[in-house]
C-alpha cells in the first residue's frame, strides 16, 4: 500500500497555504522574468577574498537574489588592487559545481565511500583518535594543511589541544628551502620593492606565470620607469616580455651564478661596505669561500658566459641599493634542488651586499597587521606540547612553524605515525611521490581529509569531511603584511549550496569535542574575529562592510635597517646554526643531486597563470583554456627534439625511475636543451573530478620520495627522464 509513507519528511506544512502564492508566481518563467528584471533591489555587494591561490586577493562579489552575479578585484586590497586574474574570476564557479563534496563520507571495507552523518563522523573519528593517542601517544597524530585564515586559527589549536606538536604546511613543496636560507641569514623573507627598483633580477620566479595582479603591475611600472630586468630561468617564461635579458641557465646551477656575482662584488670592491660593517657578521669567512667562485668557473657550471656575469654584477652594484634579486617563491630555490637552501642563502646575502635592505627599490621587511587574539582567561588556550615536532631533529634548519610535511608518510611507513588530518591540502598529489603517499597513508589507522572536492588525498582517507566553498563561508580575520599592512576578511557571499557541508571552524570544534578536548573550543568564529580586530580599533561591522582595510599606521619603515631576526641580530654571512646542524657556515657550491646524461633530461615544472596547484584543475572554464591551447603539453627544446625525430604535438613517453607518462609535446626555442618542462597543475587521477581527470600528467609521479638535506623539501626538479616518441 502507498499509505504508510504518506507523510512529508522534508517540508513541514503547519500553517502553510498555497493560496499565499499567486498562480503567476507559480509559473517559473513569468516569476523568473519579474525576479530578474528587478535588478537594483536584489543586488548586494559583498567584499571578500579569493581562494584561487595562496595570494588570496581581495575581491568584491556581487550577488543577485542570493546567487553570484559578478566579481571584481577589491581596489583596497594590497594584492589585487582592483583587478583579478583568470583564476580569480573562474574559480568562483566552484560554488555551483556538482563535483564537490556534499556530505561526510566514510571508506568502507570494500574501499567504497558511504555517506554518513556528521554525528557519526565526529563520533567515530573522535573515538578512534582517543584510542590512537592512548595507545601510541599524541605524537602519532599529525595535521597538514595549505593554510587559510580559519585553518591558521583552528587547525593549529586543534592539534595542539590533542597534545601533538605535529603541525605541517604545504611549504615542503613550495618555499621551505628559500625560507630556510633566508631565515638563517637575514632573519626572514622580505619583499622586493619592484616598482621603485632600477635593476631587477628574477631567478626562476615568473610574475607572468604565478600571477599576483599587484606584482605584475609593479613590474610594468618599473619598466615604465626604465628599470632593467633580467630573468634567470632555464625556460624563457611568460615574464619575458617585461625582461631585457634572458639568461638560460643550466637548471640547478643558480647558486653558482649568485656566488660568482658575489665574487665580483668582492673582487672589484663594489659591495656596500658600510652596510656590511654595521649590520653583518662572518663576512670575512664568506669572502674567503667565495674567492674560488670566479665567473669563469661559473660559466662552466651555469652555461652563462663569464662576461655577462661580470657585467650584470657590476651594473647591479652601480645601481645599488635600487638593485635587487627578487626573493621568489617556489621558483628555482623554493623546493627544487639539493642546493636550493644554499641558493636561498646566497641570494639573501647578495642583496645584503648591495645594501638594499629596507631601502627603496630593494628588500623591504613589511609591517605586520598585528591582530589580536582570544582572551586566554575567557578561552583557555591549549598548552604547547612537550614533544618536539617530528622532523625537527632531522631538519633543524627548516622553518619551525611549518615543519616538513613529508615526514608524515615516512613515519607512517615506519609505523610511528598513526593518524593524520589533511585540511585544504592535496598532499598525496602535490607534496611528494603519489605512489609513496598511497602506500604510506594506507598504513595509517586514521586519515581524515577536510576539503571541498574529492582530491587524490581524500581518496586515501578513511573519512572525508566536506567544507563549503570559500564563497559560502565566513573565515577568520586575516592580516596581510607589506608596505602598508591590511586587515582582511573572507565572508560569505552566497548561501551554502550543499546543505550538508560545514566550515572548518565548526568541524574542528566538533572534532575537538569528540576527541575529548572540547574545552579549548568554547569560542565561536565571531568571538575570535572580534578579538582579532580589537587592537586595531576597527569593528567587525566596519570590516564586514569594507572587506579589506589598509592600516595606515602600520607602514614599513623605509631607510632604517632593522635588527635582524638572527642569533647575532645581524646579517649572518657565516652561520653558526648551519655549522651546528652539520653544514658549512658559509654558503658553498653544492652540485645538483642528479645530472642528465646525453639524451636524457631534467624534468622541470612551474606554474601557469590559469591554474593553482591541483585545486583549480576541475573548473571547466579554466580547464577549457588548457584544452583549447594544449597547455598541458611537455615543453622540449626544438633542436633536441629534432635529434630524436620528435615533431610538435607528437605524443611522447616520459619515463623516469619512478613512473612513465604519455603526453603531447610542445617544441620551443624557449627552453634549455638539458631540460623538459611540464606545467604543474595536471595529472588529476581522481575519478570524481571529471573535468580534470586524464588531462596531462603530474610531475610528482616522477619525483622520488626524498628530502632536501637542509630544509626537508621535496627537491622536485631532481628528476631525470627519458623522452621517446610513441606512435599514437
Amino acid at each position, binding site marked *: 500500500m502507498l499509505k504508510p509513507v504518506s507523510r512529508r519528511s522534508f517540508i513541514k506544512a503547519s500553517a502553510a497555504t498555497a493560496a499565499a502564492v499567486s498562480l503567476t508566481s507559480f509559473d517559473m518563467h513569468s516569476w523568473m522574468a519579474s525576479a530578474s528584471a528587478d535588478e537594483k533591489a536584489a543586488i548586494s555587494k559583498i567584499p571578500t577574498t579569493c581562494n584561487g591561490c595562496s595570494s588570496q586577493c581581495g575581491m568584491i562579489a556581487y550577488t543577485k537574489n542570493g546567487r553570484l552575479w*559578478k*566579481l571584481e*578585484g577589491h581596489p583596497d586590497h594590497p594584492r589585487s588592487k582592483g*583587478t*583579478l*586574474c*583568470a583564476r580569480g*574570476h*573562474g574559480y568562483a564557479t566552484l560554488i555551483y559545481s556538482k563535483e564537490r563534496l556534499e556530505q561526510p563520507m566514510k571508506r568502507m571495507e570494500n574501499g567504497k565511500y558511504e555517506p554518513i552523518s556528521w554525528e557519526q563522523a565526529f563520533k567515530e573519528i573522535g573515538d578512534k583518535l582517543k584510542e590512537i593517542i592512548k595507545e601510541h601517544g599524541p605524537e602519532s597524530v599529525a595535521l597538514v594543511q595549505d593554510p587559510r585564515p580559519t585553518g591558521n586559527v583552528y587547525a593549529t589549536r586543534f592539534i595542539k589541544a590533542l597534545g601533538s606538536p605535529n603541525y605541517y604546511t604545504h611549504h615542503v613543496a613550495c618555499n621551505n628551502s628559500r625560507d630556510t636560507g633566508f631565515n638563517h641569514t637575514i632573519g626572514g623573507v622580505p619583499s622586493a620593492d619592484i616598482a621603485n627598483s632600477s635593476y631587477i633580477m628574477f631567478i626562476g620566479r615568473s*610574475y*607572468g*606565470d604565478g*600571477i599576483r*595582479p*599587484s606584482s*605584475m*603591475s609593479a613590474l*610594468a611600472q618599473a619598466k615604465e620607469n626604465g628599470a632593467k630586468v633580467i630573468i634567470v630561468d632555464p625556460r*624563457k617564461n*611568460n*615574464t*619575458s*616580455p*617585461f625582461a631585457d635579458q*634572458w639568461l*638560460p641557465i643550466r637548471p640547478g646551477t643558480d647558486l653558482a651564478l649568485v656566488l660568482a656575482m658575489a665574487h665580483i662584488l668582492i673582487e672589484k670592491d663594489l659591495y656596500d661596505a658600510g652596510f656590511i660593517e654595521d649590520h653583518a657578521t662572518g663576512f670575512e669567512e664568506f669572502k674567503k669561500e667565495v674567492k674560488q667562485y670566479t665567473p669563469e668557473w661559473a660559466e662552466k657550471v651555469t652555461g652563462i658566459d663569464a662576461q655577462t656575469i661580470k657585467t650584470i654584477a657590476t651594473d647591479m652594484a652601480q645601481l645599488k641599493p635600487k638593485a635587487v634579486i627578487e626573493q621568489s617563491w617556489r621558483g628555482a630555490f623554493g623546493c627544487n634542488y639539493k642546493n636550493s637552501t644554499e641558493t636561498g642563502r646566497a641570494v639573501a646575502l647578495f642583496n645584503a651586499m648591495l645594501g638594499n635592505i629596507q631601502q627603496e627599490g630593494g628588500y623591504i621587511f613589511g609591517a605586520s597587521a598585528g591582530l589580536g587574539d582570544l582572551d586566554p582567561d575567557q578561552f583557555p588556550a591549549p598548552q604547547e606540547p612537550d614533544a618536539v615536532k617530528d622532523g625537527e631533529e632531522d631538519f633543524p634548519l627548516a622553518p619551525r612553524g611549518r615543519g616538513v610535511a613529508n615526514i608524515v608518510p615516512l613515519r607512517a611507513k615506519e609505523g610511528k605515525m598513526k593518524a593524520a588530518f589533511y585540511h585544504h591540502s592535496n598532499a598525496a598529489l602535490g607534496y611528494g611521490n603519489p605512489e609513496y603517499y598511497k602506500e604510506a597513508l594506507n598504513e595509517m589507522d586514521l586519515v581524515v581529509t577536510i576539503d571541498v572536492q574529492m582530491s587524490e588525498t581524500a581518496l586515501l582517507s578513511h573519512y572525508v569531511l566536506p567544507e563549503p566553498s570559500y564563497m559560502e563561508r565566513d573565515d577568520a580575520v586575516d592580516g596581510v603584511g607589506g608596505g602598508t599592512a591590511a586587515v582582511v576578511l573572507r565572508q560569505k557571499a552566497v548561501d551554502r549550496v550543499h546543505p550538508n557541508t560545514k566550515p572548518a571552524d565548526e568541524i574542528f570544534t566538533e572534532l575537538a569535542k569528540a576527541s575529548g578536548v572540547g574545552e579549548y573550543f568554547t569560542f565561536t568564529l565571531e568571538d575570535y574575529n572580534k578579538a582579532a580586530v580589537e587592537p586595531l580599533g576597527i569593528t567587525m561591522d566596519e570590516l564586514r562592510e569594507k572587506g579589506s582595510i589598509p592600516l595606515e599606521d602600520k607602514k614599513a619603515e623605509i631607510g632604517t635597517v632593522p635588527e635582524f631576526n638572527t642569533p647575532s641580530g645581524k646579517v649572518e654571512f657565516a652561520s653558526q646554526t648551519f655549522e651546528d646542524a652539520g653544514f658549512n657556515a658559509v654558503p658553498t657550491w653544492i652540485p645538483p643531486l642528479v645530472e642528465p646524461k646525453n639524451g636524457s633530461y631534467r624534468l622541470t615544472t612551474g606554474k601557469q*597563470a*590559469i591554474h593553482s596547484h591541483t585545486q583549480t584543475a576541475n573548473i*571547466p*572554464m*579554466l*580547464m*577549457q*583554456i588548457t584544452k*583549447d*591551447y594544449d597547455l598541458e603539453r611537455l615543453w622540449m*627544446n*626544438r*633542436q633536441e627534439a629534432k635529434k630524436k625525430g620528435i615533431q610538435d604535438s607528437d605524443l611522447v613517453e616520459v619515463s623516469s625511475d619512478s613512473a612513465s607518462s604519455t603526453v603531447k609535446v610542445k617544441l*620551443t*626555442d*624557449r*627552453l*634549455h*636543451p638539458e631540460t623538459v618542462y611540464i606545467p604543474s597543475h595536471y595529472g588529476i587521477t581522481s575519478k570524481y573530478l571529471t573535468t580534470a581527470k586524464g588531462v596531462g600528467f603530474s610531475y610528482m609521479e616522477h619525483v622520488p620520495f626524498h628530502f632536501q638535506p637542509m630544509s626537508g623539501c621535496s627537491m622536485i626538479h631532481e628528476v631525470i627522464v627519458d623522452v621517446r616518441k610513441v606512435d599514437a
Partner: protein
Amino acid sequence: MGQYRMLVDVTKCIGCYSCRVACQMENDLPPDQSYISFCEVEKGEYPNVEWVMHRFSCLHCEDAVCEKVCPQNAISYSQTGAVVVDQEQCIGCEYCEKNCPFGRAKVELCQDKEGNSVSRANKCTLCNGKVLEGMTPACASTCYTEAIVFGESDEILQKAEQRLAEVKDRYPDANIYNPEGVGGTHTIYLLAHKPEEYDLESDATTPASAIIWKDYAQPLGKLLLGATTMAVIGGAISNRLFNKGEHHEGGE
C-alpha cells in the same frame, strides 16, 4: 559620444588569459566560447628567441564587411565605434563569418530568451553596453600589464605611435595594425612582427567579391527582377488591350 578605440599592445601581453575569462564573465559565454583567441609567436633560435603572445578579437572595422553582407541588417555600427550584432535579428546564416577578412565573426550555438539553442553570430562587442554607460571594456579593465588599453580614438592612436617608437629597438618590425583597406579599425594592434606572422594580411581589405556582390550584383539583380516583373505585367495588360477577342487559330 566620441568614438573610442582599443589598443592591444602585444609586446606587453604575458598570456595570462585573464581577459578571456573576464570577457566570458561579462558576456555570459560558456567555457568553450570566447570572443578572444590567442596565438604565440616564437622568433629566432635558442637562446636568441623572442616570444610574443598575440591576443586577437574582432577589430571593429570602420567599413565592416560583416555589416555590408548581413542580409538581416542585424549588424550595425554603434556610436562608440563598435560593430555590434543584434542577436535577435540574426538568423545564423554565416554570411558575416564567411566574409570577414580577419575570420573574427563567428556563428556559434547560443541560447535565446527561451533557453533554446540557436546559431547566432557571436563576437566581441567592444563591451558596447558598458562603454555607453561610461565604463571600460572588461578585458581592458582586467589587464594589469596594460597590454589592452581603451580610450578616446585620437588618444589611443597617439598612444600607439608612442609605444611603437618605444619598442622599435627591441622589435624592428613592429608596426601598428590598423588596416586602411577596411577604413581603419576600432581595435588596433601594436604588433611586434609583420602581420603575416600572426596570420593577418598586412593589406587586409574588404573583399572585392563583397563589393561586386553587394554594390553591383544585388542592386542590378533587384532591378532585373523588377524589370521582368514589370514586363510581365505590361505584357498582360497590353494583351488585354490589343489581343482582345482575337482568337488566334492561325497564328503568326
